[in-house]
Structures are given as C-alpha cells and as structure tokens.
C-alpha cells in the first residue's frame, strides 16, 4: 500500500447539494487524528481516479441531474463493484445512494406518467415516489450507535429490508411502512441521512475507518482530538434527540 490513505469523493459538482461530499473530509481528518496521513481527491471524471483508493463518498444531487450523475457513475461501475466487496468502504447519500440501486421512479409532474431512470444496480432495491417530500430530522437505531441527522427526499426506498442500516426511531427513512432506514451490503452504505452524517455520528465514521485501516494493514484507534470533537457531536445529537422527545445519551 501507499503511505497515504486516499479518500475519493465522486463527481461533487453534480453530487454535493447538502454538503454530503464533505464526509470525505471527515474521514480524512479522523484518519489524521488517528496518526495516519490522508488526502481527499475530488473526482469529476473517471480519468482523474487515483491508482489506489481507500474509501469512497458519493453525495446527493438534484433530480434534474440524475441521469448525468448516473452516466458518470456508470463509467466507474467495475471499480464500484470491486471496492464494495474488497474492503473499500463506500458511503452513498440521498440520490447518490438511489443511483447505486436498480432504479429510480420519478413521479410525473402535473399528473403526467411516472418516469423510470435505471440505476447502476450494485445495491438491491429501488427508489419509488412518496406522496410528498420529507424534510425533517431523522433518528435511527443502528449497530453503530443511535444515528441522528436530517433527511430531505421525495422518494421512498423499496426492498432494502434484508440489510437496512438501522431502525427508524423518528422520521421517515426508507418509508412504505418498513420502519427502516438505509441499506448496507458488503462495504457499501446507503442512507438518507444527508450532510455531514459521519461528523455528527462518529460511531458510523469509525466503522468505515476501521474497514479502511484493516485493508491497509493498519490498526484504527480513535485519536485524542477525535475524542474531544466527538463530545461536540454528542451534544449536537442530543439537542435534536431531546427536541424530538427522545432520551439524551
């Protein structure tokens, strides 16, 4: 392996509408705080892909650019398949996650017919229209701790039941009465939790970091600075949880 850990964020000019691509920075910073050296590479075209990749972040974009983003992701289909099964963690948020699925159904505007966009098909399930957009806090019980964040999406996610990221404590998540949020398959993590989900939920960040360090033959121990920053994250999560009538932790 190379000495420096490389975290790539895919096509951020199309996929970063809620700051989701910035999760790459969170991984790099925590890797540094754990004593490793790390860099973030923003990849706007397949030709810019570094030779070695340790983790991948795919953010969320606007519906008008779904097909453009999908076509870009297709140029990395083989790499994404390979990474997701060989210990390179992939975090995909919002529409970035939907595009990894089998497909996205778009509600027709003004009562027009439903339109479907094919996904790149590396995750089970598909995105289907909701009655109305959900824009609210989302709290999820997961094996990486209670995850707290914000969701802003116009579609539910069907058929992730086999391997969700967690169970919804507050909010909508995958919807359709599933009571579940997100999907995890191999090293691929899909979630509606937008924005800096890894900063606010370091338990999930450290799971991704442990996988990335393991593959590099390193041992991941949370750094001292991370421990103090994680106290800030805990306060931010608790503020939201308490407002929603959940217990502080």
């Amino acid at each position, binding site marked *: 392996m190379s000495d420096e850990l490389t975290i790539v964020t895919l096509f951020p000019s199309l996929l*970063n*509408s*809620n*700051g*989701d*691509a*910035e999760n790459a*920075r*969170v991984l790099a*910073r925590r890797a540094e705080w754990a004593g490793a050296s790390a860099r973030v590479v923003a990849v706007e075209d397949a030709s810019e892909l570094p030779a070695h990749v340790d983790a991948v972040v795919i953010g969320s974009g*606007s*519906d*008008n650019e779904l097909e453009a983003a999908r076509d870009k992701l297709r140029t990395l289909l083989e790499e994404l398949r390979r990474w997701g099964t060989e210990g390179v963690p992939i975090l995909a948020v919002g529409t970035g996650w939907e595009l990894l699925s089998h497909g996205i159904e778009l509600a027709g505007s003004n009562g027009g017919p439903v339109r479907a966009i094919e996904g790149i098909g590396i995750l089970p399930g598909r995105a289907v229209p909701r009655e109305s*957009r959900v*824009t609210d806090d989302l709290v999820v019980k997961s094996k990486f701790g209670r995850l707290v964040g*914000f969701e*802003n999406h116009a579609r539910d996610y069907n058929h992730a039941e086999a391997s969700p990221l967690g169970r919804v404590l507050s909010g909508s998540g995958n919807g359709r009465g599933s009571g579940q949020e997100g999907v995890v398959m191999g090293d691929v993590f899909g979630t509606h939790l*937008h*924005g*800096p989900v890894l*900063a*606010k939920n370091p338990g999930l960040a450290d799971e991704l970091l442990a996988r990335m360090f393991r593959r590099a033959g390193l041992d991941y121990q949370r750094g001292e600075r991370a421990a103090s*920053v994680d106290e*800030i*994250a805990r*306060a*931010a999560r608790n*503020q939201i949880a308490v407002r929603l009538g959940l217990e502080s932790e």
Partner: protein
Amino acid sequence: MGLRYAPAILIGRCVRVLARLRKPGGGSAVPGLVVNKIAPGFLTETLNSFPEGLVIVTGSSGKSTTTKMLVAALRGHGKKVFTNPSTANISQGLTSALLEEASLTGRIAGDIAVLEMDEGHGALIADALKPKVVLLTNVMVDQIDRFHDSEMVAGMLEKIALRATQAVVVNADDAFLEQIVTRLRGTVDTPRFGVSVDVLDANPRGLGLAAMTPRRMPSEAGVLVRSVSGRSTEVTIDGGAVTTVRLPARGTHYAVDAAAALATARAVLGNRFDPAIAVSTIGSIPPVFGRGETLQVRGTTVEFVLVQNPASFQLNIDHLDPDTEQILFAVGSDVRDPSYFWPVDTSGLGHVDIVSGSKADELALQLSYDNVQIGRIERDLGKAVDEFLAMPEPSRGVKTVIFSADSMRRTRAHLGLSAVEAPE
C-alpha cells in the same frame, strides 16, 4: 379603488393599536394578517396602484442592499418612492407596512413602489401583481430545507419575472437567470449587469452562483463591474466612461449589487436616467448593519459580519483581515439544518474564541473538522456577547462578531442597537 377597502384599513389600524398595547414595539405582522383575511385584494391592488408602477427586487441574495441602492438612486432623481422597511418581506409584514401609509381609499402617496420580495412569498402573490420592472439578482444554493434545490428557486423567480410589463433586469453571470430570459421570448426588455473576467479571476472560489454562464458579459451589453478595490468599484454603462462607485462594505457582491441597482434605475427611469446622480446617490447609502461595518459598542470597536448562505459565508470569511485576533461566531435557529454550510472552507479563520447561538454545537463541529481552534462553546448568546466584549482589547485587529440572521437580531436586541439600519 374608492372606499372599498376603508373598513378593512380601519380594522387593520385598530388591530395595530391593540397589538402595540399588548406588546410595545411588537406585533407588526398581526394587522397584516387580519387585513389579508378580511380583504384579500388589498395588498395586490395597493401595490399595483402607484402611478409610475411597481418594481420588484428578488433573488437568492443581495436583495436588501440592492433595494436600498435602487431607492436612493430613484429618490436622487426626485421620485417619491414607497419601499418596504426591514424584515417586512412577507405578505403580512408588507400589508402592515402599507397600512401605516395608506389613505382610507387604499392609496399611498408616492410615484413608485420598490419592493424587496422573498422568492418564495413573491411567487405566491405574483399572479395578482403587475410590476413594471423586475430585478433578478441571482440563484444561489440557499435555504435547502425550504427550497430543495436551485431549479426550484429558478422556477419561483421565473413566475415573478413573467409578470413584468416593461423590463426584467438580470445578472448576466447567472446561467439560471439567462435561461429565464430565453423563456421570456423577447416580450419585455432584459437589460443586463455582470462582472469582468478580471473581477472573476480575483475571486478564485467564484461568485457563489448555483450555475455560471460560460462567458462574461461584453462591456457594451450593460452595466459591467470592471474592478473592485476595498469599498469602491469601477463600473461602465454600455461600455461608456469608467465611473467609480462607493460601496457600503467591502466585497465583490456589493459591487454587483451596485451594478444591479444602476441597471434597474436606468430601466425604470428610461431617458430621464442621469448616471452621475445615480452613482453619487448609490455611493451615499450608509453601511448596512452586519455587512462588515464597525461600530462602537460598550466603549470598544466591533466589526459585525452576517453570513446568510454558503456564498456569503465563504466570501465574508475570505475577506476577513487575516490578523483578526478575537472572533465570536454564532449561528441560530434560522438555520434549520446547517448541512449546506459544510462545503464552506472555514479553515482560514484559524481560531474562534467563542462559538455561540442555538446551533453552536453544529457550527463547532464544522469548525473542528476544518482544524479551527475553538476557545469555548457558550450556547447562551447574550452571555457570549457580554463575555466577548469584556475580553481585553485585542493587540491586533478589532473584535469581530460573525453571525447568522437570527443571531444578528438577538445580538442587536441584546446590545440595544435597534435603531441601527438592518439588512433585511
């Protein structure tokens, strides 16, 4: 419109008196709420009744500064202008403001109305309005939880633009606005303003627009910002003589606001437009509170900096004096979910003495991941402000307070600065 609205106006005034008795200094939106309920046509009919028409200023950012500049320019030309006071850019507030000045026939003394309009609320009442001129400032990534994405903002601006009877003034650097111009199909004039290649080059992070046009506007095509230096800018009108305009604060976005105000004043006044009057009156508007001006507070000099969206956040941080020794940074409840701020690179701050506001933890988290050193977190803004002002005088720079709109309002109230000009 006769005395049709007289009962509603009288009732609105009674409600206003009652609201003020109950809460001195407050209750400004309540009379509007009541009148909009009992006389739903009052607001739009009154707005459409000005003899020289209605001008609407809308877009993601720069609305309030540009509106003030435009009003100053029109008044400089001898026009009597009605404009909406600060924070009254929603229907209730606007109706309340109109009630203050309307006669019982619903008429307001004045030649022309210039209104700053929130894109969301503006689109809601657009169908009933007949503006003579609409100014579209820009489409920025702003308030994601309200508007979801830039296409939606552009759609709302288009709805307002389609109502214009004479001209739609647009920012030529904004690709979304140029698309709107295409869809207007030449039904109205579309004067432009924009920045030069040099100005864009001096802003390596760009202008904060959601999408930029591929080429800069040629100087002969409108009002062009040629250069920006501190609190002044050089502009040309249709490629004519270079003119210097004084700005209310430093920063490229204020120069663009001035260009927008010049282009709009010209569209409104036609051949009565005098560039010399426009430039001098625009240059005379006072610094806007929270836009990088300094004030004397409790015997110490304080600079106040407002961040409203990712673009102004980044620009304002980039424009801070790098030697600034003491910083208080507060984000409040106006930012529902601060995720969309994360693309902003805050590392240039280096350190922040006190992080405050109801979203203090979220802000501290972002600063931490940019390796900005944090002195401490104090969620109680009043306490934070008191302790910040009580700190020993800095040896370098001035005490600097950076805040979101909600924290700004709370800070002003806490310091008793209510008489100071507000940006909204």
